[in-house]
């Protein structure tokens, strides 16, 4: 691979000097990553508060006069949309993707730094537009995060005017932001890897982010067109998704459109979206596990191919969200088969994480605790997916709390466990300080056990037949009174877990300034980001010399070598001279 002269030769002249250039209009991928992360965490807190309101209503119905069916649906909708798109996608790709890609592949920055900056500010704009919908007449949309027409744009659904329009505009802006960031990530990974960093030497984190970004670039356009088409239906009176219908008894001027078409477009985006969130998490957790178990990731090549296979398959399973949507029922055969096939590479990943621990030497650090917690929650969430993916089992469970519990385990709790693992793991690189371990352990236990006590019982509400998106169950014969006490206990767990996240927030702020100093490579990790000259790394990442890569990312406990890890940029000659701290 060739390098341009400017990359190899440090030129102090283009380092930013003013405060604004360094921290606000920054083109440094690390600063942009932090901007992305802070924005995503902030908007995530909003979504967390919304879920608390929702749980209050479900746990204690008829008790809160400020929650009515409309506002309840608005909480549900905004909670879901914010968590999936504006928190998880933005934090995993915009945050961790931005921070880790150049550092882990040995690049000075993203290949298009200006575009990268633009990506963040466009994302921020999408968040502002989204939050603005809380303040328009009628409030934000309450159509459910799936935004199914026709009800989304009709009276009878909260936020059917300003709310839905701002939602669609915000999504469109987000997709523009994602595309700018995503093209950058893919190009950087393909074009700017350090000498010796072959694709099959890349850490799984990069493989996860890389594949997820490609999924995003292919899937988000489906959401973009459906948002635009819905906007046209709403504002101009086209009938893409609108057949001839009544609205609250009055005929409307639509004719011939198809609501199911929207669902296909939405889930053609929506299912890959699950993996856009999951694959970076798979990658990051792999690296956390290997590092803290002091052992190479088991079956690296299979892990890579599993990520790629899952990514590919994720485009042919979308209609498993639509088994009872009224689409041609014969589709069920195809989509059930593809969906259950995707379980195989996914299961292999779980086995390989567990097998990585086998005969490892496990340091039970806070990131490792979250990573192990992830294996448990993801196993649970993945297995319940086998219920819903199998078309006939989906019939009684679809649209019930079983679905809610399943997807919260698999793409709520699990990626968030990884996010926490990743934050505790990489925080020392970002700030040069550890997060407080005691608070971290408390945070882990409360979150791990707390979320399970929310979602395990919730599956059983689903078996019982309690439908999702119900403001209240009301008098229903087949649902015993005791279901309400179950709901109340879920709410209490949820509120506790919610409050505990504030402790995590406090930990981040406190540790940024007062945390224990970590040094450049506190976990004795092999990947390049830990080998920077300075911690936190400075603009340009590598100072005078760009690392040269000699090995894969998982040389832990290599036999015959004194140190229990060999960084990727250590040459075979240097290995012989290494001491047990990994230094030459």
């Amino acid at each position, binding site marked *: 691979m060739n390098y341009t002269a400017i990359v190899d030769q440090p030129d102090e002249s283009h380092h930013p000097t003013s405060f604004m250039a360094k921290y606000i209009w920054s083109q440094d991928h690390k600063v942009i990553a932090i901007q992305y992360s802070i924005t995503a965490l902030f908007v995530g807190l909003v979504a967390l508060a919304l879920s608390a309101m929702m749980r209050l209503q479900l746990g204690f119905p008829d008790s809160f006069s400020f929650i009515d069916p409309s506002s309840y649906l608005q909480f549900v909708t905004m909670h879901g949309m914010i968590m999936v798109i504006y928190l998880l996608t933005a934090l995993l790709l915009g945050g961790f993707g931005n921070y880790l890609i150049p550092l882990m592949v040995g690049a000075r920055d993203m290949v298009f730094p200006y575009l990268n900056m633009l990506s963040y500010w466009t994302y921020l704009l999408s968040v502002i537009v989204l939050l603005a919908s809380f303040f328009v007449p009628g409030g934000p949309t309450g159509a459910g995060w799936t935004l199914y027409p026709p009800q989304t744009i009709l009276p009878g659904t909260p936020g059917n005017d300003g709310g839905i329009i701002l939602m669609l505009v915000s999504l469109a802006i987000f997709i523009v932001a994602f595309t700018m960031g995503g093209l950058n990530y893919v190009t950087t990974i393909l074009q700017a890897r350090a000498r010796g960093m072959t694709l099959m030497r890349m850490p799984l984190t990069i493989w996860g982010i890389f594949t997820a970004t490609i999924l995003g670039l292919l899937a988000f356009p489906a959401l973009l067109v459906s948002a635009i088409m819905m906007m046209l239906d709403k504002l101009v009176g086209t009938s893409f998704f609108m057949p001839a219908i009544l609205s609250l008894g009055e005929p409307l001027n639509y004719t011939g459109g198809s609501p199911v078409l929207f669902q296909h477009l939405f889930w053609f985006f929506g299912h890959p979206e699950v993996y856009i969130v999951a694959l970076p998490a798979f990658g990051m957790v792999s690296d956390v596990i290997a590092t803290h178990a002091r052992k190479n990731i088991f*079956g690296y090549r299979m892990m890579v191919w599993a990520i790629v296979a899952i990514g590919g398959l994720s485009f042919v399973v979308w209609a498993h969200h639509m088994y009872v949507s*009224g689409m041609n029922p014969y589709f069920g055969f195809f989509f059930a088969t593809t969906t259950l096939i995707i379980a195989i590479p996914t299961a292999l990943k779980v086995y390989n994480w567990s097998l990585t621990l086998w005969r490892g030497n496990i340091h039970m650090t806070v990131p490792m605790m979250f990573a192990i917690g992830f294996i448990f929650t993801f196993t649970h969430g993945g297995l319940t997916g086998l219920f819903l993916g199998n078309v006939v089992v989906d019939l009684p469970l679809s649209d019930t709390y079983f679905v809610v519990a399943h997807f919260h385990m698999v793409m709520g709790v699990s990626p968030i466990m990884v996010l926490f693992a990743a934050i505790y793991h990489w925080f020392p690189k970002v700030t040069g300080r550890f997060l407080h371990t005691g608070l971290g352990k408390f945070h882990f236990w409360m979150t791990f056990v707390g979320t399970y006590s929310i979602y395990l019982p919730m599956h059983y509400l689903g078996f019982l037949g309690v439908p999702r998106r119900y*403001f209240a169950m009301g008098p229903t014969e087949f649902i015993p009174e005791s279901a309400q006490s179950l709901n109340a206990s879920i709410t209490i767990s949820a509120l506790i877990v919610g409050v505990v996240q504030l402790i995590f927030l406090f930990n981040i702020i406190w540790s940024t300034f007062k945390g224990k100093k970590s040094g450049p490579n506190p976990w004795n990790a092999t990947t390049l980001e830990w080998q920077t000259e300075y911690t936190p790394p400075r603009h340009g990442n590598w100072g005078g010399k760009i690392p040269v890569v000699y090995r894969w990312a998982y040389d832990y406990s290599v036999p015959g070598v004194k140190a229990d890890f060999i960084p990727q940029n250590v040459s075979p000659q240097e290995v012989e001279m290494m001491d047990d701290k990994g230094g030459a």
Partner: protein
Amino acid sequence: MAIAVVILLLVLVSVVFHFVSPWWFTPIASNWTAIDDTITLTFWITGIVFIAVNGFLAYCVFRFRFDKNRRADYEPENKKLEVWLTVFTTIGVAAMLAPGLVVWGDFVTVPDDAEIFEVVGQQWHWSYRLPGKDGVLGQSAVELMDEKNPFGLNPDDINAQDDILIPSNVMHILLDQPVKVLMRSKDVLHNFAVPQFRVKMDLVPGIETYLWFTPTRLGRFEMLCEELCGMAHYTMRGQIVVDTAQDYQVWLDKQFTFRESLDAPAGDLQLGKKLYASCAACHGDNGQGNEALNAPMLAGQPAWYLTRQLNYYKTQVRGSHQQDIYGQQMAAMANTLVDAKAIKDVTAYIASLPTLAISPAAVSNGPLARSIASGQRLFTNCAYCHGDQAQGKFALNAPRLAGQHAWYLKRQLQNYRASIRGAHREDLYGTQMIMMSRLLQNEQAIDDVIAYITRLKPAADAGYLQLGSRAISATESPSITGQSRSTQEVSR
């Protein structure tokens, strides 16, 4: 160490919870036991994997915990192990998928002897249609839907004539008779789901969807909408009654065909007027109501609503609750109307009475609102069905509230909240009102919303209200707070 123990504990808790949990599928009432079997099979397979993976995880975490004198193994790959794991996983997945697909094959193949009925969804009610003697459902279209033809059937279609219309949330079907349910929506997406039957399907406007099942147990089963359909989604309930052949026939004989509904003669106003004489004692000559006698305003109320309520009174659906004293009185009176014809005549007469408004004095003497704004905010939830001006909407089965006496509205809201009214299982929209009334969580909220309702003056009233010798122009419609000289005033 601790984490290994906790993981094992969580596995144990999950297994125990699964077996002792009282929260499980409601007993099945259809032929789809194969679905339950597939779920049981899936549970066994996934349960074993869950225990195995997490058991192994906990073992590793415990056994290979940090020891400074030990070194981790170096084992990048193990082809043999990886192949075996792939094979085992594939077998496990196939073991769940194959039976699932076989059962799905049954689900998409409707048996030849299945009878059909149609379920029609709308925000936030159900109605049904049977094909009648010819066994064929007539054409329908949204464009044809109006008050006379709520199902939107084509009056020129020969197949539509004998279609049996069931404008009710309750449907009856025959025990052990396979049914194919055809589904259609008037407005947005809905979902037909009866937990005991296990199967469900969306109703999609613009297309017809279906499912089939055979009911295997007599009884009355709750039906829920399970696809978000707007703010009152959670109140969109129906019932499927599984009958013996005898009971089914009794029920069927009471239903009307499309042709009969079109040809139904209008009520006789003269006869109705005579019948009304006994109502007038309490409700007043002009249907203005009388607080002293606890009689609500009837003027302005449409015939369909009055008919429904009179039928409820006659059949003890309303007015049978012990605490509903005035309802009991009314039930006795309703029984004096001997048949459907009498009800039709009297309701036609009442519906012909001019709409009245309550006097501003009565309004201002009514419940005190903290602020009209609070009532207005609460009323937005009511307005979807009852109309922005509380004028009532036939299409949503919602009666008129405007012009009704505040004390009557209040008593009804309290009765709904306390399930004194609306809890009878044949009260089609009662459950809905019970749930909606609970949005008003205290007396102040009830007062606020009523204060707002009593100040509404539907635009439809801006005609001429003729009463006795006084002809009154309503063009100078009173403002919400202003004094009215233009609308007929009725003292409390």
